[in-house]
């Protein structure tokens, strides 16, 4: 059916709200979709990395002579070679602190020290094994709390990038591992806490876990003297372009980043990862160079932040929380990456979705001698919720209050002020809570099980998060002379279904079937600027830009109709419109849209702002478990997660985003952990680091949403990429406590940990057996 200007059967909402199957789904399941990791360019050569075996040390010497002699090896590169083509080899989004290859010092085990470029990846791999290096080992610091006061400094001086105004004062700072301290002050914590009827203080910890995308990191750089092209597995091509242009001292228009489909990212492929290295190697090799990681190498690229969270609350005699202090320490690893942003942007929600008059938050980003930490599906919020929702349950138990009623008494509802001072809008937290409780049948009697060794329990948790702000998205909608529409947007479809959702919004505005909208592959020469596919921002920010671009195109088509003499309300086929105007099938109508939300920077020192986020993400989880008290084994019999999505643009995609996020977090909660011994990761492979599989699914898994119109959102919608990760961990820990009376303060909740806690509670610790 040909697209027409004002179709008579036009139905508002016919495209938005449809569970349109993924536009690229068939290509993906039939193996036709393009991914960087399997892509090859003519004349391409391959690089593999030689990595540090010490956590902190001065490089005394690197011997590459044997590697150079391997047939097929073209170059063996150290930072000295890099600095011949790029004077300053340092990169990073918040700090320019990460060298392309280790420079003078190594700062973590696994840090790239040298690279081999060869005609074949296996030759490169073999040659890497012939490289040797000598280090003068230095004392190292691994723990985030120790790093605060340690006299071991990971960096001699700090090098903030100019991008972030709030990091400027750290320029050239010496003798510190603190990359950022974020503070929020509201009311008078000390006074309110001292006066409170009940006082509570707990310390929670989270472990080091990582993203493990199905497609490991991969980047191909094709360097020419006048321009450079990257084929990149990246969640943020616009940022990559800016950073590469900075390294080269070139204008952005000479740098081209092409991004095929991503085999997921979860935050790992943000900002800049392998691109600077690939650039340097391609400049040296004068051929296209591919750098592609193995699964094992991902353990040395980027992880989630381990954290220590000291939380204090004062509660009055009516069960109202009157004061809360949050001290959060983020283990950032050897290079800052986006850690300072995690520290600040999640730090501001550290006190939880509660209505508390007196709040004190200190959130510190710390350098340590381990693999760098960055964004991972939730930008730090899951670590915070782990603490404050465990803390909430512990307080309720101590106060002999029902944990759900205790929460209800304290929830921050619409119209109340958040700890930042922003008045909460579109914040239907009670709706989310009620839906979880309804599906859990919370008000009905709970079966605690009849077996003497198996104890049943249930738990609940609730959370909110502010979307990262302010950020910008730009989109273009191009209507061709035959009436077909093409969308140019930089949001990277890495499995979340953004291409389909964005196409649905174009189709809704233009009154055409979603399946007829073509979404161009990401290419910074073609697709306009986008801040990045991160932090659940795309559907909201890019969604606005896409909607505006489509509306702009629609308005221009109407103007064109007027210009060629069509009457008002004409239903002329679009193709005929172009024919009339240009005399043949020719021409384009180009609509564009830009979106950047309003924002007020938090006041320095107090973190207060009337407008710190354009929308809130809300999630609640309920879990039921069976604990085998003889072994500590936990079987999850029910896991229910409810989020507020504003409006489901594509209901099926919303549901799978929720189930995917919940299961990913189930792994982090129950068994995933990078074991680190003296800085060395001892389980850096999928044989020893297990992620959830189908057998780990809860007996019953429900992934649900409520639709509470987001008044400033495109079609009332907001993002849901991360939100279902927030509450899974504490809901499970609360359920275990409910089942058998033990409280675990540090993830993961594996069987031995649970069993040890049971024995400790009995007064017979396992180690004394």
């Amino acid at each position, binding site marked *: 059916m040909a697209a027409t200007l004002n179709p008579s059967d036009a139905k508002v909402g016919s495209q938005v709200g449809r569970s349109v199957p993924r536009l690229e789904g068939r290509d993906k399941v039939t193996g036709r979709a393009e991914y960087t990791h399997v892509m090859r360019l003519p004349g391409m050569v391959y690089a593999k990395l030689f990595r540090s075996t010490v956590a902190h040390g001065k490089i005394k010497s690197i011997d590459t002579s044997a590697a150079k002699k391997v047939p097929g090896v073209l170059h063996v590169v150290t930072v000295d070679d890099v600095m011949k083509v790029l004077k300053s080899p340092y990169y990073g989004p918040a700090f320019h602190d990460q060298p392309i290859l280790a420079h003078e010092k190594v700062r973590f085990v696994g840090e790239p020290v040298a690279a081999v470029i060869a005609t074949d990846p*296996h030759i490169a791999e073999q040659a890497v094994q012939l490289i040797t290096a000598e280090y003068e080992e230095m004392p190292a610091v691994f723990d985030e709390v120790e790093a605060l006061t340690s006299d071991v400094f990971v960096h001699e001086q700090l090098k903030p990038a100019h991008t972030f105004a709030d990091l400027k004062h750290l320029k050239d700072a010496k003798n510190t591992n603190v990359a950022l301290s974020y503070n929020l002050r509201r009311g008078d914590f000390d006074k309110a806490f001292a006066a409170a009827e009940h006082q509570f203080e707990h310390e929670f910890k989270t472990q080091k876990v990582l993203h493990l995308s199905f497609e490991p990191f991969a980047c191909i750089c094709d360097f020419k003297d006048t321009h450079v092209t990257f084929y990149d597995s990246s969640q943020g091509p616009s940022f990559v372009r800016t950073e590469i242009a900075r390294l080269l001292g070139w204008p952005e228009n000479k740098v081209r980043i092409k991004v095929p489909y991503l085999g997921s990212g979860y935050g790992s492929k943000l900002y800049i990862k392998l691109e600077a290295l690939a650039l340097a190697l391609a400049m040296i090799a004068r051929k296209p160079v591919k750098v592609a990681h193995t699964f094992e190498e991902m353990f040395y690229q980027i992880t989630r932040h381990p954290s220590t969270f000291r939380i204090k609350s004062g509660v009055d005699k009516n069960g109202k929380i009157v004061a809360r202090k949050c001290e959060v320490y983020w283990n950032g690893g050897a290079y800052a990456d986006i850690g300072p942003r995690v520290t600040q942007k999640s730090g501001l929600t550290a006190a939880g979705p509660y209505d508390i008059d007196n709040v004190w938050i200190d959130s510190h980003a710390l350098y340590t001698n381990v693999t760098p930490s960055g964004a991972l599906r939730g930008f730090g919020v899951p670590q915070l919720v782990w603490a404050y929702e465990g803390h909430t349950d512990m307080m309720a138990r101590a106060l002999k209050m029902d944990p759900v009623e205790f929460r209800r008494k304290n929830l921050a509802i619409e119209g109340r002020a958040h700890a930042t001072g922003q008045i909460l809008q579109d914040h239907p937290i009670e709706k989310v809570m009620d839906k979880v409780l309804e599906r859990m049948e919370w008000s009905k009697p709970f079966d605690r099980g009849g077996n003497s060794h198996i104890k049943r329990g249930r738990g609940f948790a609730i959370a909110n998060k502010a979307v990262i702000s302010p950020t910008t998205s730009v989109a273009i909608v191009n209507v061709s002379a035959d009436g077909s529409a093409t969308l140019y947007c930089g949001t990277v479809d890495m499995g979340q279904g953004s291409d389909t959702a964005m196409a649905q919004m174009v189709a809704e505005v233009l009154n055409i079937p979603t399946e007829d909208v073509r979404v161009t592959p990401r290419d910074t020469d073609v697709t306009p600027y986008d801040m990045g596919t991160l932090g659940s921002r795309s559907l909201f920010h890019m969604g606005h830009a896409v909607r505006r671009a489509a509306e702009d195109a629609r308005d221009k088509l109407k103007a064109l109709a007027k210009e060629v003499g069509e009457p008002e309300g004409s239903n002329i086929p679009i193709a005929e419109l172009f024919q009339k105007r240009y005399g043949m099938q020719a021409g384009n109508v180009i609509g564009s849209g830009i979106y950047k939300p309003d924002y007020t920077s938090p006041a320095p020192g107090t973190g207060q702002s009337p407008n710190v986020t354009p929308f809130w993400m809300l999630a609640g989880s309920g879990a039921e478990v069976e604990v*085998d008290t*003889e*072994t500590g084994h936990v079987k999850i019999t029910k896991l229910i997660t409810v989020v507020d999505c504003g409006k489901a643009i594509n209901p099926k995609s919303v549901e799978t985003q929720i189930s995917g996020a919940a299961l990913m977090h189930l792994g982090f909660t129950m068994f995933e952990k990078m074991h680190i011994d003296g800085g060395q990761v001892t389980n850096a492979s999928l044989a020893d680091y*297990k992620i959830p599989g189908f*057998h*780990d699914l809860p007996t019953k898994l429900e992934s649900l949403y409520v639709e509470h119109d987001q008044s400033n959102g495109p079609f009332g919608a907001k993002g849901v990429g991360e939100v279902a990760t927030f509450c899974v961990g504490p809901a499970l820990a609360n359920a275990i406590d409910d089942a058998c009376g033990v409280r675990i303060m540090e993830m993961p909740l594996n069987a031995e940990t649970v*069993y040890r806690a049971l024995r400790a509670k009995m007064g017979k610790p*396992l180690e004394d*057996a």
Partner: protein
Amino acid sequence: MKPPPFQYHDPKTLAEAVGLLGTLDNAKLLAGGQSLMPMLNMRFVLPDHVIDLNLVEGMAGIKETDGVLEIGAMTRQRELEFSDLVAAKCPLLHQALMHVGHRQTRNRGTIGGSLCHLDPAAELVTVCMAHDATIAVAGPGGTREIAFADFPAGYLTPAIELNEIVTAIRIPVWPAGHKAAFIEFSRRHGDFAIVSAAALLQIDGGRITRASLTIGGVAVAPVRATEVEQAIVGQAPTSELFAKVCESCRSFEAMADIHASAEYRQHLAVVLARRALEKAADLADNAPWNRAH
């Protein structure tokens, strides 16, 4: 990763394979490849020669002779899983196979390969220990048999010479009507067990007349709980009895790694020993831990 280069050999007869193994330096035998291939690819082993046994004739098959189940070393685990003979004569082996890796790995994995790799947590190793199996080996000097109790020489190390090949496994079957139970505790379904337990019971007239109890995954090789075996023979099977005598398993020497501490392994040995005996004696049919996944 990919393995560094090696020379590949595909002998057609056992004599040829033994000949190659005896003459080549730094050679590895390839059976089902479910352990060797990942170890090659991750460069944990660096052989100069790989001798593939998959084309050697007469190394696979299952038969019963005079109360002994004889299984060729190259018999696939999946074939054992579907063997009526195994299910009828050796229910312990049948149960254990359901825990061996996944369907995909059982399609390829062999019993001989698993025994020679000798992972401390491997189910088939535990079954052979429980059944007092005998391992048949061929070398340049002819053939010999090794009692399974003597087969593990250390961690991942069978007591065979570098020039010997395991050809068959002989499992003396227990009388018809005997009871068997194989259970294990793993991080996730399909993962290597942290601790496993295999129980065999002969019960006549309400009393245990013969017992075998083996704990896998605790030490470098499976351990027979002889103290428990001796204590329960002649007794009526009850949960109270099993709970009392299985405490002795806490004294087993235990390994520690990132997956479990030594004292936790010892504790699991106690719990799993009791549960395996209870299951074999039909005392725990409704126990939640015996429910299918």
